[in-house]
């Protein structure tokens, strides 16, 4: 008996020993330590880590610890770390979430570092504003992008349809869609993706009508009629087979690999300009970026240069100044810029942009050219989305699907959407 038990003890001891090797804590250093957290792929991580190395070289005695995750895993981990009081010092932020985190006091205001540590004088003014919430600066934009239509050039060519231009109207685009579908060059293939549930697309369309998604004080900025017209436009496209039917569109989880374009169901998709690389990687045919269609020939275009992502500094950081210093290095250092390219979007600093341009590859150049070539289609940056914006986006998607599957007509869709979004925003 004793013998048996001692054998178990030995087993447990062995297990403890085994685990010790794995559990051995990281060496604690006396150096200043900076923790970074961002979402993205290994490509982004490689670039980011290289910049961190450069920064360490320029600032001896600083240790940098970078963590990265894919988009969908990123947010629960960040939320848990912030809630537990263990937030990283430098946090990559999205335009939508920066409001949620800043208003709740999780991010450090950076205004006091402007001019001293943060030398972002040559940033577009608007982009500085983009990182501000309630008048304080919480994030430095890492690059700009804009919504765009991803277009499969080969599918257009096969069907003998000319590519859309910056002055293509929705009516014309719908006709192109019909022609591609009719041409029937590929099995089960349609001209367009159904964009009725794509919020940035609706925003673009609303802005052309002089409206917006949200007002500056966080209310809904369009009415049921706008919604009804929007849904009616797509309803007609579905009926004419200009775009994919409801059940194909519903496969789209609004990421690159589930879009009708990548699934080989449609010749267009709606995304952001910095996603071109991702799209091209999983599509055989050449993909190009095109601006969104216009409501009429005289429309001004609803695009804006959107900060694709920010670096923010945690309010709990032990050394926020060092964080700010890192962020500044990241967006201003010419060597860093060459490493980063336009992977996170087109750099905000004019000087960095110029220094960078010659070293870009084809896709990077395409994204840069697209954003800088939008010209008169670009308007003002809308106010940052209010709390509840994420929920409102899901609501649009759900109502769009209800209309597409015939559970609601376009008019009911407009009313339901406005009601739901109003309720969501009032709950905050």
């Amino acid at each position: 008996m004793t013998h048996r038990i001692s054998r178990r003890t030995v087993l447990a001891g062995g297990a403890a020993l085994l685990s010790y090797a794995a559990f051995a804590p990281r060496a604690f250093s006396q150096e200043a330590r900076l923790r970074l957290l961002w979402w993205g792929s290994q490509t982004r991580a490689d670039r980011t880590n290289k910049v961190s190395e450069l920064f360490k070289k320029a600032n001896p005695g600083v240790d940098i610890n970078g963590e990265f995750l894919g988009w969908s895993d990123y947010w629960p981990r960040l939320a848990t770390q912030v809630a537990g009081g263990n937030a990283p010092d430098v946090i990559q932020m999205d335009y939508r979430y920066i409001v949620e985190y800043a208003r709740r006091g999780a991010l450090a205001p950076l205004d006091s570092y402007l001019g001293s540590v943060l030398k972002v004088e040559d940033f577009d003014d608007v982009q500085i504003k983009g990182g501000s919430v309630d008048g304080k600066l919480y994030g430095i934009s890492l690059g700009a992008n804009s919504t765009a239509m991803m277009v499969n050039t080969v599918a257009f060519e096969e069907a003998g349809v000319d590519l859309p231009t910056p002055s293509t109207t929705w009516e014309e685009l719908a006709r192109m869609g019909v022609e591609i579908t009719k041409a029937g060059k590929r099995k089960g293939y349609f001209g367009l993706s159904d964009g009725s549930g794509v919020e940035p697309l609706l925003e673009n369309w609303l802005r052309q009508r002089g409206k917006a998604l949200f007002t500056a004080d966080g209310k809904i900025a369009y009415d049921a009629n706008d919604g009804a017209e929007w849904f009616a436009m797509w309803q007609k496209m579905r009926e004419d087979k200009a775009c994919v039917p409801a059940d194909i569109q519903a496969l789209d989880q609004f990421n690159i690999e589930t879009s009708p374009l990548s699934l080989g169901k449609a010749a267009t998709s709606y995304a952001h300009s910095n996603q071109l690389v991702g799209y091209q990687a999983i599509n055989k045919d050449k993909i190009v970026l095109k601006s969104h269609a216009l409501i009429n020939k005289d429309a001004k275009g609803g695009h804006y240069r959107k900060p694709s992502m920010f670096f923010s500094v945690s309010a709990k950081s032990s050394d926020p100044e060092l964080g700010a210093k890192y962020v500044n290095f990241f967006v201003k250092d010419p060597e860093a810029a060459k490493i980063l390219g336009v992977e996170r979007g087109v750099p905000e600093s004019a000087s960095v942009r110029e220094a960078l341009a010659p070293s870009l590859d084809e896709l990077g150049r395409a994204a840069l050219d697209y954003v800088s070539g939008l010209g008169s289609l670009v308007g003002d940056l809308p106010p940052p989305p209010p709390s509840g914006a994420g929920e409102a986006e899901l609501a649009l998607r759900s109502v769009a699907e209800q209309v597409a599957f015939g559970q609601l007509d376009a008019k009911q869709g407009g009313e339901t959407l406005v009601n739901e979004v109003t309720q969501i925003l009032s709950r905050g």
Partner: protein
Amino acid sequence: MAAVQDSAVAIGGGAQARPAAQGRWASLWTKHGAGYMFLLPWLIGFFGLTLGPAIASLYLSFTSFDLIRTPEWVGTANYVRIATADPKFAAAMQVTFLYVVLSVPFKLTFALLVALLLDRGVKGLTFYRALFYLPSLLGGSVAIAVLWRQLFAGDGLINSLLAQFGIEGPSWISHPNYSIWTLVVLSVWQFGSPMIIFLAGLRQIPTDMYEAASLDGASKFRQFYKITLPLLTPVIFFNAVVQTIDAFKAFTPAFIISGGTGGPINSTLFYTLYLYQEAFGNFRMGYASALAWILVLIIGLFTAFSFLTSRYWVHYDD
């Protein structure tokens, strides 16, 4: 350790022999002590690791907690909202109940049938058993999400098979009327765990009972009905309870297949997915905690009911 052993041995053997003078505590110890000794690791874990967080989440359910700021006490407001003003709660409940009712019986029946088949000494048993467990090895990996689209999309494998019979199927996975079925199929397809448990249960049935029965000339079916089934009831009961709890709490399948949205049109909005959206997507951990405790209540009622009825059909050897 030695002391424990001694006293433990004392309980079994020499309890009655002990002089009464040792007193009340000793007799209490001999009566209840061994039980608590065996339960000790679990008790430490329960009080040290589980109870605290559970109480915290119960407390949070009466607060408005946005994950970052200090929780604010709101009384029963979260529960009131769930009961009166949350259409998504109702939708999620409906989807979840449907999933429980559809997936659990199918999965258990399938698992039991395969286990019975595999228990019959078929040649190459190990091989089949391993193959049948493959889907369960995949768990909730990203690959499943992509694969399921390949199978159940409009031009997926399932529809090309149906087309051989002249049937034109819809895009099952992305149609609000059918999408829940693709999740049920996924659940049934990953039937490996209950199958293994059934197999282990079948292994524990003494063979001499069958031998006696077949000497008495009992038919195969009668043997199954009179021996296998009754002796297997504890395992059937276990699988039913556990699978039901799991189905109520199911998260991963809907999360990976709907990309976390619960769509199309909330048709795969599992309860825990909604809870997750509220907690981590909309920064309403307080509300999510209230949702969680409602779920605990519902599962608790189901489980209590199963235990109450189990005494009429589950046979234990003790």
